[in-house]
């Protein structure tokens, strides 16, 4: 997966996959693959969230130290 992917892209793809599965538009043949992709997207989002949190915390901590 490209590092260039944004959280927004990842989130939208993720939602699309889940929505597809929910709508039964996914065959058993590709189900694993889709779930795998979704799982990777979830991981990516979570990582990005964590990274953002760390970032923000650092910024705010820096501010408070001043």
């Amino acid at each position: 997966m490209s590092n260039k992917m944004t959280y927004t892209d990842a989130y939208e793809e993720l939602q699309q996959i889940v929505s597809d599965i929910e709508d039964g538009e996914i065959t058993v043949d590709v189900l694993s693959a889709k779930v795998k992709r979704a799982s990777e997207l979830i991981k990516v989002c979570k990582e990005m969230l964590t990274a953002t949190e760390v970032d923000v915390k650092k910024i705010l901590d820096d501010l408070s130290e001043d």
Partner: protein
Amino acid sequence: MSAEPKIFSLKQVLQSIRKTIEERYQSLYWVKAEMHKLNRYPSGHCFPELLQKEDGKIVAQISGTIWKQNFERINQRFMEVVKEPLKDDLTLLMQIRISFHEVYGLSLEIVDIDPSYSLGELQRERLETLKKLKELRLIDANQQLDFPLLPKRIAVISAPASKGLNDFYQVLENNKYGYLIERELFPAYVQGDLAINSIIEQLRVLRGRTDDFDIVVIVRGGGGEVGLSCYNNFLLCKEIADFPLPVLTGIGHSTNLTVAEMIAFRNAITPTELGEFLIQTFREFDLEVRDLGERLEANTLYFIEQRLLELGRNSEKLHGKTKETLLRRNHELEQSGQLLRHRTERFIADQKRLQENYQQKIAEKSMRYTQTERNGIDQILYRLENSVEKTLINQTRNLKDFEQTVRLLDPINVLNRGYSITTINGKIPTEKDLKEGATLETRTKEFILQSTLTHKEKRDEQ
């Protein structure tokens, strides 16, 4: 028959009358009568005219006689008691003897006079005068007049060269203050019966000259206690009471006040006292004017002093209030400075707090934001798991359905339950295939049977 009339001599007749009267009137009698005229003769005897009036008309009249020795005794007692001599026009209670004299005729010989009765009569006149004055509302008319500020010009009614007048003038002239009281004498009798008309006459003269005088004084002195009943006379008293100027009396006696003294503006016991009263009036005015002078001086200086103090107070107030105003303004400025500092500091503190708030808000909002996102992801994960599971379950169920259907349709399963399948030429026979003589193949669980069709009929129930 005629007889020669008896002829009496005059003397015989009068002697007979005298005898008869003497026999008939032997006692002494008390008689009340008015003595019109005393008629005292140089010999000392008196032959008064006695009479009685009814409604102003004489209804009885006779001459009386008072022998000299009787008169002296009677008059002395009368003076002692009544304070008046026997005189004309008195109503008297007399003890008389009726006598007739051949030469002098009928007369009442007065042997005594009751002075108490006359005193009562005088008293009665006094009361009568008071009553009439009251009825005329004149009793205090003179007293109601205003006394002049100064009795500068006085009309003096008095007997010229009398002691009373002299005493009065002495007091006025010899006052040690140099007060000047101008006076004019109006001579009159001031005692005895003549006084009544004499004084009235002068008062009437004075009525025409009221502008020339401030007051009228009636002065009598040195006459003892006798001859004062004239001052009870109604006409005189009325004239005094009704007089337009204050009338002051100084009659000089010590007995009961006469009506004139009672209704005069003021009564002094003696002319001297009257004079002193007038001087005293001047003295009081003098003192009053002096007092006014002193008050004028004192209060004028006090007034100026007060104004100076007032100015001083204003000056002090001006000092004080100006200083106060400046101090207050200064204080106001100080306060404004402090307020400026205080408010500026608070303003900055407020701004700082706002910044701190924003800092905190950003931390909170960022955290909440990422948390919300995390929750979103978790939600999606949950949906993913659910939908995958549902998909798998659906597929599994579909496959099971298929399996079931297939098993039910498998012919083997039919044969196993004891059924058989009959076919013609390998097919499930139709109407046209079922002809007599057709070869039927029947399969059971374990066998394949071949047979020929012999009969066919329709089942009713179809």
